[in-house]
């Protein structure tokens, strides 16, 4: 019941907010949204405490028949790969609600409702063990995000919303055909049954690329990443946070749940392809990030580069790589979310995201600058922050796999430091150059709270990642063993 509760509690609460909220009771709506998101987070906590770290099997399983005609089941469960994303998603939703507190003034109930519904749907993606259930959740997330970007977004929001929707839909429709093909071969939509299904190489290749189309767009990998900077720049702060922290992870998670175990031979055969694209993302996109003038765009490109690390880690087929990729997914959730919140804090005061409009923020906002610089450091992968652990594991894993790949991946740390530190220097340090900055007021308690909580999480994960890796270990181990065995006959 725990997983169902985690999924449906935010969705039902979001629906209630949509139904009951009015523009004249915005204050009550905010508190209701906060209570709903905190409650949704609390129901996910027993997952962490009750998780058995000694097994790779699915836990907290629920299984009921949903659509008999196609043998589709309402089948939920989490293993070490997916478990952490459930509380992470619920946690980020609380942050989003707090971040929107004073910023969103009109149609508060619709904004909060959309985010709560989105949160439940994304948790559903991580929990679904039935292919069609996964697809339904995966696609359904498009609707609230499309509306969030389009209604509360910036000046080019319509373009960004369309691009986001159509790019993602294009990928996932091919995945739908892949799911139907697997159904026609196995007679069921059970993902775990598909893992055991023997398939010839030709079918595996087609399946691999069909899944690749869906997940590469979502991650996003170079060269299908172009929707992300647009979506990030135009989305409201909360939308950017959810996009970067959770939504990108849906794609990376899909690689581990579908591509690798269902088509292991194809995955091993085409690993150079993914590794190549990942390295391009890491290096080329890192360079692209360096020349951005818009802070949000810079962080967006940095997200693409960081997600490149994740996909790189997945396709070097060793424990360090995959665990490192997973750790990177979680830490990126905290760090990129926090980076977008910092930009949001500045944007709410100055209404500009141009780096050139700032300079010397530290003089007027010392508390804020301290936190922002901390997150900047985490973004470049400073040891003792969450950003370090994942990148370090992936680099170590790639050196094991192939020294040159490891070397190329490691250069990314330099680029990451370069673009992040340069942005920090231009925005936060130096003399106060203009009136925008001179009139800034430091962050209030609410803003301090949301950034502080994220800072603690980032630090904790950087210093003591063991709880995270312990949960992942058996499942990653089992996955690697599974992938090593050929499914050809």
């Amino acid at each position, binding site marked *: 019941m725990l997983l169902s509760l985690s999924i449906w509690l935010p969705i039902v609460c979001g629906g209630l907010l*949509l139904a009951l909220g009015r523009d004249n009771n915005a204050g009550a709506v905010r508190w209701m949204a906060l209570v709903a998101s905190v409650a949704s987070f609390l129901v996910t906590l027993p997952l962490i405490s009750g998780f058995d770290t000694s097994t790779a099997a699915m836990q907290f399983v629920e299984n009921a028949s*949903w*659509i*008999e*005609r*196609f043998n589709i089941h309402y089948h939920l469960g989490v293993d070490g790969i997916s478990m952490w994303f459930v509380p992470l998603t619920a946690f980020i939703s609380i942050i989003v609600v707090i971040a929107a507190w004073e910023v969103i003034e009109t149609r508060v109930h*619709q904004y909060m409702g959309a985010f709560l519904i989105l949160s439940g749907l994304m948790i559903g993606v991580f929990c679904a063990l039935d292919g*069609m259930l996964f*697809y*339904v959740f995966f*696609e*359904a997330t*498009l*609707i609230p995000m*499309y*509306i969030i970007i*389009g*209604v509360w977004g910036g000046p080019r*929001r*319509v373009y960004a*919303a*369309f691009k986001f*929707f*159509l790019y993602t*839909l*294009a990928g996932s*429709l*091919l995945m*739908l*055909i892949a799911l*139907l*093909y697997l*159904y*026609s071969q196995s007679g069921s939509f059970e993902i775990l049954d598909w893992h055991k299904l023997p398939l010839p190489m030709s079918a595996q290749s087609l399946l691999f690329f069909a899944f690749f189309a869906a997940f590469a767009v979502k991650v996003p990998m170079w060269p299908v990443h172009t929707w992300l900077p647009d979506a990030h720049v135009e989305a409201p702060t909360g939308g950017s946070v959810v996009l970067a922290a959770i939504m990108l992870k849906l794609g990376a998670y899909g690689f581990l749940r579908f591509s690798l175990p269902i088509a292991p031979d194809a995955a091993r055969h085409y690993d150079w392809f993914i590794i190549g694209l990942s390295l391009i993302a890491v290096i080329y996109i890192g360079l692209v990030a360096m020349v951005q003038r818009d802070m949000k765009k810079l962080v967006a490109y940095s997200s693409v580069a960081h997600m490149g690390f994740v996909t790189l880690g997945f396709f070097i087929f060793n424990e360090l790589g995959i665990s490192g990729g997973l750790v990177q997914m979680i830490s990126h959730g905290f760090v990129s979310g926090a980076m977008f919140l910092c930009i949001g804090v500045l944007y709410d005061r100055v209404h500009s995201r141009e780096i050139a409009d700032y300079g010397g923020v530290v003089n007027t906002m010392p508390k804020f600058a301290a936190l922002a610089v901390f997150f900047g450091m985490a973004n470049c992968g400073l040891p003792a922050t969450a950003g370090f652990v994942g990148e370090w594991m992936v680099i170590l894993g790639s050196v094991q796999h192939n020294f040159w790949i490891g070397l190329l991946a490691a250069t990314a740390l330099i680029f990451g430091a370069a673009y992040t530190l340069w942005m920090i220097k231009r925005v936060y340090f130096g003399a106060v150059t203009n009136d925008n900055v001179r009139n800034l007021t430091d962050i209030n308690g609410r803003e301090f709270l949301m950034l502080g909580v994220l800072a603690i999480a980032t630090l904790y994960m950087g210093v003591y990642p063991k709880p995270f890796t312990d949960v992942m270990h058996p499942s990653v181990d089992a996955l690697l063993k599974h992938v090593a065995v050929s499914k050809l006959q």
Partner: protein
Amino acid sequence: MNDMNWVAVYPEILLLVLACVVALVDLFVTDPRRTPTYWLTQLSLAVVGAMHFAAMGNAPAEAMQGLLVVDPLSHLLSGVSALALIITLVYARPYAESREMLKGELFTLSLLALLGVNVMVASNNFLSIYLGLELMSLSLYALTALRRDHTISTEAAMKYFVLGALASGFLLYGLSMMYGATGSLSIPRVFEVISSGTVNKGVLVLGVVFVVAGLGFKLGAAPFHMWVPDVYQGAPTAATLLIGGAPKLAALGIALRLLVEGMLPLATDWQQMLLVMAVASLVVGNLAAIAQSNLKRMLAYSTISQMGFVVLGLASGVVNGQPDNHALNAYSSAMFYAITYVLTTLGSFGLIMLLARQGFESEQISDLAGLFKRSPWYALVMAIYMFSLTGIPPTVGFYGKLAVLQAMVTTGQSLYLWLAVVAVVLSLIGAFYYLRVVKVMFFDEPTDHAPLNAPADARLVMSLNGIAVLAFGLLPGGLLALCGQAVTRALAH
């Protein structure tokens, strides 16, 4: 065989009687809002629809000396058609009232059109198919022309009549060839004769070509789609909805009766034609819809593309000439698709009618601008329809596409697999214009701020319609199973 079996056709007889009663009663109604006529019509439809749904479980039976066959298939399609007509009339009443269309004829002709639909879907004989078709079509021609002094409507009615008559001619010509070759008008008898393999294949195939062309016209599938955009746009929206709802189910019904029940041994021949029609419909419908600024015209092209999916379902039944359970699965997918399409169409055209006011049609896409700020709930409902037509879960439209694509992939043939890919790519193009409607409603600023102003019953039905599209999307199992049972019990030989 030579039995009248009156009991089986009680709903049709009742419908005929009630249509006459409504026509008579209306002569004595002086109320300009036609309240007694309206409620009598709705009551008749409810009773007839309920009779059909109640009889769903009955075993298939022939009636009227073998002219009709009453089976779960006919009951389901007739019942849904009656329901669709009820919903249509709820939406149409305020619209018709402000356009001087609220006359007795609207109700009588609607009931007669429904009778035609019911006869079509229950036909067991070429003759009764044609009779039902003409009864339905003639009623609809007259309904389209109901606004006599409105130029565009009259033009649409004229176009509909000419092209509809041409289509009927095609169908009749094809059927006459089948009759000439097989010597019988009875569908089961035709099936037997064709199966025996003793007839000249050339004549049969020529007949099939004309039959399929006629069906293509009635379904509105490309390349026989020319009438659809003009008629949908030109007809008063109430008539558009009458044309776009139940008649699609009727066309699907006779397609199943003629092609599957009658001409299954010729499946390889008609499947090829259907595949070409399906792909053409998807291409024409989706590409042309992008260029439209008129919402009704855009939805007309959208209909063409949606019919492409229905036809794909019909065409993926028989693999290698061997009908089996898979075929029934494919046909029930097509049926599920058509029913859910009708449900969604009712809502989207219904909303156009609810937004229309005296002297203002509200049929441009831009007329929806800022609906989210004017009436958030109806904007949400319309968005649900649009996402359903796009095929995004969790709306019911997704499961229609899923069912049809599943039927295609399950054939196991690479041709069908690639056609499925083509179909999803084209529906991706389709996503653009549906999303544009959502964009106009949600992201644009309203030009006028008046909230939607419609009678309470119309608003209630609109809300229920939207909730149904969402609810069937969350729990589609029941309706899928219903379609599956209806097709299996009716068509399994």
